[in-house]
């Protein structure tokens, strides 16, 4: 064993209170799910070949909110802090930080001597520059929302950056302080094209972007890794990272099997087969930041809590996992992902809804829907209940899931049609309420997922609940982590009691690695840590 470090996924707790003395709390450390480390010394060299199903839009934190872009930028850009396995922020580019007693100013000390790939220094002014770009209204940065109540950033000296907030912003460390730091000289040089020529201080330098086909990064030989959750404190082992754009999942699998890829985001359908292959190891992260749920529009019958509870009771979640996810997901009754600080299995079991067809029918009856004519479909005032459940294309798992749900809903008397549509076309229909209820998937790290989902007007503009808003604001502005967690859980219970969404499952993250790949793992926010990976030939 070269390292004792096993990959662990702890429940994430965001704390900006750590430095003002509140003890860190650990909540239910998850069993490790990752790949064991192999014996042997890491060997440098080689190219790590991966597939992505589409191009990222741009690798510029001030221009993108794409998950994929974030994943790739993580290779090039370092951030002020990272979130450790204990769920707390740890210094990265920042050596330390202080939080003002009122929680409205956070002052970071920047480590001296860090250089960007272009040789310019990463100092306080550079940090300020990056955040100012996102704050600048003229940039219309889509990420601006995640900076919350941040008002301004000051750099009084090269080693000090001060963030000033109008109200305490509890999610800042996860949502704000983990943003990659870009080279101001690089931005000046490339201008609008910086997103295609990113320059940071990370373990990999951007090498080339072949339009539409591949993106290549190369090792930064001068890299010093300040992260304690990585084993490799020096430059990355692999010479280069190669991301090949392969849109079709079946083609990705073919390329992996033909030995043209080292890593594969495994299609669920191929999991069983690939896990039997002795040359392949599947690395699984069960406690993911994924949440799959049914959400509802603000119109009858969907705005009736009893109807929503009936829906939640009628879903056979285990059958969905068995059939659509081929066993690779976990039933989740919480309105937050399983890898979330606010997740609480017992609490959600108490306030949530398990598969129970009798209770579903009871709820329908409470809402005024009964099957009087015996046709199997409930009706009100002689009119059969007929609804359409939506999801988005082209994801076979998604459509299989709603096919199973359709059968479940029909079983309790909710006459259900289903419809899939491209993701891009869903937005106006969600916001207009045309989509009555739909199966949705979110990936989100922080407790503030509840705010993102439900704070008036809600992400689909279908929520307006002052009582819930008050709970959410409390959670978002409470600096003390214990108190914040309590506030988030209060909001969570409110969401469950009113069945505002029907949580269904959290699907696992699974990557197939060829036998040549060693030490592949994620960090607590499910970012790949590729500077730890090494290859044998």
């Amino acid at each position, binding site marked *: 064993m070269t390292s004792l470090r096993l990959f662990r996924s702890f429940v994430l707790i965001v704390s900006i209170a750590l430095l003002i003395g509140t003890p860190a709390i650990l909540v239910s450390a998850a069993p490790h799910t990752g790949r064991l480390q192999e014996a042997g010394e890491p060997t440098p060299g080689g190219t790590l070949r991966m597939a992505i199903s589409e191009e990222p839009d741009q690798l510029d934190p001030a221009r993108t909110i794409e998950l994929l872009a974030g994943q790739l930028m993580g290779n090039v850009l370092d951030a002020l802090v990272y979130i450790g396995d204990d769920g707390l922020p740890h210094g990265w580019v920042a050596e330390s930080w202080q939080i003002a007693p009122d929680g409205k100013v956070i002052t970071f000390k920047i480590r001296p001597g860090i250089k960007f790939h272009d040789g310019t220094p990463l100092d306080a002014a550079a940090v300020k520059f990056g955040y100012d770009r996102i704050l600048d209204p003229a940039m219309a940065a889509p990420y601006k929302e995640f900076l919350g109540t941040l008002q301004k950033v000051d750099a009084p000296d090269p080693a000090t950056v001060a963030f000033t907030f109008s109200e305490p912003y509890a999610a800042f460390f996860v949502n704000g302080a983990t943003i990659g730091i870009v080279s101001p000289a690089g931005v000046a040089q490339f201008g609008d094209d910086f997103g295609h020529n990113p320059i940071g201080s990370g373990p990999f330098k951007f090498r080339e972007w072949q339009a539409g086909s591949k993106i290549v990064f190369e090792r930064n030989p001068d890299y010093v890794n300040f992260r304690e959750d990585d084993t490799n404190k020096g430059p990355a082992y692999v010479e280069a990272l190669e991301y090949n754009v392969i849109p079709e999942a079946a083609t990705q*699998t073919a390329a992996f099997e033909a030995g043209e890829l080292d890593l594969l985001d495994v299609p669920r359908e191929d999991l069983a087969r690939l896990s039997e292959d002795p040359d392949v190891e599947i690395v699984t992260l069960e406690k993911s930041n994924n949440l799959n749920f049914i959400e509802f529009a603000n119109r009858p019958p969907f705005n009736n809590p009893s109807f929503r509870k009936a829906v939640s009771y009628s879903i056979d979640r285990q059958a969905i996992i068995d059939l659509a996810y081929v066993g690779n997901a976990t039933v989740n009754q919480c309105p937050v992902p399983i890898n979330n600080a606010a997740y609480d299995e017992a609490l959600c079991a108490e306030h949530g809804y398990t598969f129970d067809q009798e209770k579903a029918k009871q709820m329908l009856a409470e809402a005024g829907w009964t099957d009087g004519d015996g046709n199997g479909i409930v009706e009100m005032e002689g009119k059969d209940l007929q609804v359409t459940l939506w999801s988005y294309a*082209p994801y076979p798992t998604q*459509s299989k899931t709603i096919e199973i749900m359709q059968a479940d809903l029909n079983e309790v008397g909710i006459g259900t049609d*289903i419809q*899939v*549509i491209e993701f891009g076309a869903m937005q106006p229909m969600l916001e207009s309420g045309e989509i009555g209820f739909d199966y949705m998937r979110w990936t989100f790290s922080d407790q503030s997922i509840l705010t993102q989902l439900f704070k008036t007007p809600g992400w689909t503009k279908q929520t307006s609940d002052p009582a819930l808003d008050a709970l959410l604001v409390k959670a978002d502005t409470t600096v003390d982590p214990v108190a914040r967690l309590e506030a988030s859980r209060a909001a969570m219970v409110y969401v469950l009691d009113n069945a505002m969404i029907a949580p269904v499952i959290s699907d696992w993250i699974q990557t197939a690695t060829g036998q040549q790949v060693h030490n592949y793992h994620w960090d607590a926010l499910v970012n790949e840590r590729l500077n730890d990976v090494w290859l044998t030939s």
Partner: protein
Amino acid sequence: MSAALTAPALLPARAKTRTGFRPFLAALFSRRQAQLGGAVVLVLVLAAIFAPLISPYDPFELRVGPLKEPPTRAHPFGTDDLGRDLFSRIVYGSRITLQIGTISVAVAVGLGVLVGIVAGFYGGWVDALLMRFTDVMLAFPGFLLALAIVAILGPGLNNVMIAVGLGSFPGFARVVRGSVLTVREMEYVTAGRVLGATPPHIMRRAILPNVLAPIIVLASLEFPAAVLTAAALSFIGLGAQPPSPEWGALLVDARTYIRTAPHLINVPGAAIFVVVLAFNLLGNTLRDVLDPRLRHR
């Protein structure tokens, strides 16, 4: 990816010589290609009509057998990933295939005949305007056009059929116009005009029967193209909606099973292939038979 590949402009633009229906059928089915194609189409139609009698299971019922089971005696085409009987789904899917082909072609023919006849008969600026419009529509690749129309109308089988029909009408318009131009100058039409027959009357009685042959040929070739386009739209999630057993959707949903449960992709793939090929063979033979230049050799 289909509409652009047909060759409407090169179809015969001639009046159909008067022949009976029976000799026509005899001529058609004396050819091996037509026999092959005709037999498959017959099976397809019978399957669609008698689907409830033929299917051993409800095509929508989950878990009637084990999951992803290869073909067995109980499930001749195997079962799918939700444990549905694939044979029953294919049988019911034949209805949708027929529906897609028929309605898309009907939309294309309807619009194409209207535009083509009006343009050909009136000529002048009407003709110029309509034909330029047709040219513009032709300039949009069929699949892209269908994609755009479905994006506007929303996904779903009905909109797919409208989109495919709209995308392929220019071919019909051109062929019909060409035929009308030839027929228009023939003696009996001129005679009709002199005798005071109204334009709609002339169109219906004199011109329509004579442009029938090229329309039939083109329609028989457009039918399979429509089935393929609908399947292609399923590929990007714009086609038939689940749990519809439309063959293209079955094929698309099964694409990640190509190694683990190949029957799931090969059965619908083969079904589409056989039916489309049958229609193409039939259309090809129809063309030969209906084209007088080739028939008498």
